[in-house]
């Protein structure tokens, strides 16, 4: 039998089995972290692959793409570009997200010239029984995914909305594209005609002649393109599309890592208990000649083994979770970035291995600390029962803790790295690590401030905790981490919700809102419809808005331009300004920009900016920065009169209607139906309904977060229980002596419950302070850098109080459960526990 096997039998075999409940809990925590992380990464990677594949199938063999704003650009550009000597083939495209009749969803319709597209994007040219269907108006070819999702086959008719009218499209065939994207393809001229895009193109796909250098051709063609029209490689477009969801994906990954970290703390607590319980065999094998180093690594290997098992189970659970999530929420996990894409989960061995390694490393680290502490204890002391070595631990504030906290504070001032709040996450991790390192000092100082109670069990509990701050720190680590994260998320979510509510109240001042279409960008209100709505008897005031897309930074996704009828006298009444207002001059009209735009472009009130509108650069003055929780990629607001004057576009996308005194939504709806025959295609909503919908989505989004954090709290309590039980194991003699001296079992129970509750109170206090600090980082750094959303700090006191009371009660119960062995044991046996 090898020495390793002998050591394993002497110190490990049976030990893990004896506390299988705690080991399983620790494995569960690690497994949960691995499962969440793997699921999120798997879904993200699969969705990103699917989006890339979908975009590639749309762009085919194009080397370059010319793209314009949402309403397109002048098609006169096409012949100029097509004649360029470096261009082998140019395929003009019109793209419209057309609302499907009787559905609140849109279908992306791609208008192509089949002859041109065959040379660049052949996958967009469908199989048709009659080739002329490619040219006929009213014909559409669906991708397999679209045909399946809409449950239509060739020969069926699909009705889509254009303006307020229905456009019937006969399904002429199915595209050969294998992409999972839902699209429909029709003739470009027919699409322009059907969707009021006459003379406009959305993009031109270009295939270069052999030998032409894309970057050089792009640079040359860009110089001749009108403002707001850009040229780039398809890959750049894919990158900018995926970039939209990147911060969201990274945030989900961070949440998964939090679960993994908490699992590591639980392994730490469990291994501390396991080591405490095995003092005798561990000391014996050391006394018999096993080196300190060998024993330390043996204990670390135990933890790694737990991590390995947990990680493997976590991988399987993660795959299942990913499959369920994709089915339930889609490839973007409900965030709305990749609509119409249902990814096939593709197992990437590298990702799987990475998460297994992560689980093993976290568990091994959780084991290393108690293994090191034990290995450092003098052997003679370890051979004796008792715990003298743990009492002499230093309670000075470690310099490393101060350094970590200082570094964490400093990191909050660092900018985003490639648009990701990595410094914010680093700051949170540093503050957490610094606090955990300072826990003995914090526990000592806090406990010293508590007056000694008259009750003997309580006084003994306090005396015990004061004397063993290092042990208290072990018990507290998981609970402090869990409470801090819970509190920080609770404060952040409460602040966000409160700010969102206030924002909704401010941006929804009207009585009823009318949208031209529930989805897509094919619906609009013509000037005639606008006039009819404005002159309805029940309408006191109406403010129309035209939504457009504008590219302000090349390579970045377009931002939303809202051309609005702003309230006279106070144009910012419907905006929540966080900076400004700044007066604009006549030659540079006012432009209000959202925080996302201000952050990305570096604009501030008073900045004069050039915005590409109607193919020309128009000068504006940034009049203010407003809060906008609706559009993460950014938004711009300008006076609709100015927009109309500059573009000639007098269409509107939505209307905010203030009803006349005596009128109500019901009356208005009847008047609208009478005045506008196509009113059935309009979407009407009251501010209350919009507010309720927004808050419902908000709450649903964060429900998962709360569920995860509740799990973190359970893990934290389990950590407390493990560490507390570890402490109790080493105190059998103490309880025996107290029983000899006349303390009843009930008094000892009260003492232990007091210890657990006091300890948790210290943990709660520390966790609340740390959580408050982390909340500030989440609000002012992570959210700002991830989503560019500012919010007002709101502390949910009732929720936090309920959390504190619940945790204290749970801690008392946990302590009592952990103390049961101490209460059961015989006092005689306990005091004989010497070698």
């Amino acid at each position, binding site marked *: 039998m090898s020495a390793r096997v002998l050591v394993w039998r002497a110190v490990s075999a049976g030990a893990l089995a004896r506390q299988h409940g705690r080991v399983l809990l620790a494995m569960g925590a690690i497994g949960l972290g691995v499962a969440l992380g793997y699921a999120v990464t798997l879904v993200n990677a699969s969705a990103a692959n699917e989006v890339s594949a979908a975009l590639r199938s749309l762009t085919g063999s194009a080397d370059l793409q010319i793209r314009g704003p949402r309403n397109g650009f002048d098609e006169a550009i096409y012949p100029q570009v097509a004649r360029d000597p470096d261009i082998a083939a140019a395929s003009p495209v019109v793209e419209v997200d057309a609302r499907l009749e009787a559905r609140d969803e849109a279908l992306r319709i791609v208008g192509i010239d089949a002859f041109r597209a065959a040379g660049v994007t052949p996958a967009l040219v469908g199989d048709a029984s009659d080739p002329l269907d490619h040219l006929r108006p009213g014909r559409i070819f669906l991708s397999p995914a679209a045909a399946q999702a809409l449950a239509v086959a060739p020969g069926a008719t699909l009705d889509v909305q254009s303006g307020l009218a229905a456009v019937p499209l006969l399904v002429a065939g199915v595209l050969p594209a294998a992409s999972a994207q839902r699209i429909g393809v029709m003739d470009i001229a027919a699409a322009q005609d059907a969707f009021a895009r006459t003379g406009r193109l959305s993009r031109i796909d270009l295939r270069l002649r052999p030998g032409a250098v894309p970057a050089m051709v792009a640079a040359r063609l860009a110089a001749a393109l009108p403002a707001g029209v850009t040229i780039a490689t398809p890959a750049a477009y894919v990158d900018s599309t995926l970039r939209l969801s990147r911060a969201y994906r990274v945030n989900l990954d961070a949440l998964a890592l939090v679960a993994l970290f908490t699992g590591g703390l639980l392994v730490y607590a469990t291994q501390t208990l396991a080591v405490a319980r095995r003092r005798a065999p561990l000391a014996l094998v050391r006394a018999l000649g096993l080196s300190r180093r060998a024993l330390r690594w043996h204990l670390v290997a135990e933890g790694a083994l737990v991590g390995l098992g947990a990680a493997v189970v976590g991988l399987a659970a993660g795959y299942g979770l990913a499959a369920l999530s994709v089915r339930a929420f889609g490839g973007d996990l409900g965030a709305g970035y990749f609509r119409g894409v249902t990814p096939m989960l593709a197992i990437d061995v590298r990702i799987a291995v990475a998460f297994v390694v992560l689980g093993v490393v976290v568990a091994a680290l959780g084991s290393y600390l108690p293994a090191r502490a034990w290995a450092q204890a003098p052997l003679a002391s370890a051979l004796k029962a008792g715990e003298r070595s743990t009492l002499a631990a230093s309670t000075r504030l470690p310099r490393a803790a101060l350094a970590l906290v200082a570094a964490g504070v400093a990191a909050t001032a660092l900018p985003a790295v490639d648009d990701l709040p990595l410094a914010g996450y680093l700051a949170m991790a540093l503050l957490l690590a610094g606090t955990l390192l300072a826990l003995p000092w914090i526990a000592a100082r806090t406990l010293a401030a508590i007056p000694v109670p008259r009750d003997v069990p309580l006084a003994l509990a306090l005396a015990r905790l004061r004397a063993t701050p290092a042990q208290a720190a072990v018990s507290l680590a998981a609970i402090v981490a869990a409470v801090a994260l819970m509190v920080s998320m609770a404060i952040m979510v409460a602040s966000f919700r409160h700010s969102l509510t206030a924002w909704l109240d401010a941006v929804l001042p009207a009585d009823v809102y009318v949208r031209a279409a529930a989805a897509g960008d094919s619906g609009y209100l013509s000037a005639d419809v606008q006039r009819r709505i404005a002159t309805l008897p029940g309408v006191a005031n109406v403010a129309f808005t035209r939504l457009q897309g504008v590219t302000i930074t090349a390579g970045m996704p377009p931002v939303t331009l809202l051309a609005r009828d702003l309230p006279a006298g106070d144009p910012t009444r419907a905006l929540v300004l966080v900076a400004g207002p700044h007066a604009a001059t006549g030659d540079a009209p006012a432009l209000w920009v959202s925080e996302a735009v201000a952050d990305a472009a570096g604009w501030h009130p008073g900045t004069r900016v050039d915005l590409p509108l109607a193919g020309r650069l128009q000068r504006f003055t940034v009049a203010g920065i407003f809060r906008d929780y609706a559009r993460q990629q950014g938004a711009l607001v300008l006076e609709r009169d100015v927009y109309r004057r500059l573009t000639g576009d007098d269409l509107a996308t939505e209307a905010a209607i203030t009803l006349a005194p005596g009128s109500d939504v019901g009356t208005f709806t009847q008047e609208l139906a009478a005045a506008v025959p196509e009113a059935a295609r309009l979407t009407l909503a009251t501010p209350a309904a919009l507010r309720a919908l927004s808050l419902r989505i908000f709450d649903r989004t964060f429900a998962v977060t709360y569920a995860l954090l509740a799990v973190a709290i359970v893990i934290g309590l389990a950590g407390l229980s493990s560490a507390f039980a570890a402490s109790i194991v080493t105190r059998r003699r103490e309880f025996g002596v107290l029983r000899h001296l*006349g303390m009843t079992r009930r008094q000892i129970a009260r003492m232990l419950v007091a210890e657990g509750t006091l300890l948790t109170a210290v943990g709660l206090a520390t966790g609340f302070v740390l959580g408050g600090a982390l909340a500030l980082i989440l609000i002012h750094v992570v959210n700002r850098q991830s989503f560019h959303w500012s919010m007002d700090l709101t502390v949910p006191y009732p929720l936090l109080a309920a959390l504190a009371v619940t945790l204290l009660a749970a801690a008392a119960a946990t302590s009592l459960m952990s103390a049961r062995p101490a209460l059961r044991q015989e006092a005689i046996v306990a005091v004989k526990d010497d070698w």
Partner: protein
Amino acid sequence: MIHLDRVTRSYPGHPPRAVLAEVSLTVAAGEFVAIVGESGTGKSTLLNIVAGLDRPDSGSVSVAGIELTSLDDDARTRFRRDHVGFVFQAFHVLAHLTVAQNVALPLALLGRAGAEAGALVAAMLAAVGLGDRGASLPHELSGGELQRTAIARALVHRPAVVLADEPTGNLDPNNADRVLALLRDCVRAEGATCLLVTHSRHAAALADRRVVLTSAGIDPLVTAGAP
């Protein structure tokens, strides 16, 4: 003060191990009695039964006029709190309390605190020669000092009975002599009755009476001293 009448105690096993077989013993108030004997003859079991920590299978045990065999666990705990002081071989001084706090513990459990308790603790510490070590923590004390702390704790609440189980087993001979002398003097000064379990003939010689336990029970031939 202590009266054991035909006390029998055996432990489960195959076959059950009989430790005490119909042992009877009477110890007068103020008497200092040493119980000696080979290992496994039931010395510590006898002490545990007198302390109310263990119950005999049969027979009766009366200490300070209280019949222990009829008491439940809580009542026996109160009995120990009121009437018994302990000195252990391994000292068992609580590591997280100061010397003075350790000594004050029995008083605190009796609900006695404040100046009066403080004075009693100070006096007791002075009596055992630790008058200046009240604020020290146990890990700052030597073995002899720890056992003196334990003696102070055993006597501070003026118990009727002091039970000492091998109190010098962890001490060197010089310290052992000093601690034993201190224990005897203090017990006498407080008027307590003391049962001392020991392997040491030297320690037993300091007692008023020596009771020898054998596997057959108390050996009347080698048991010496009055009455």
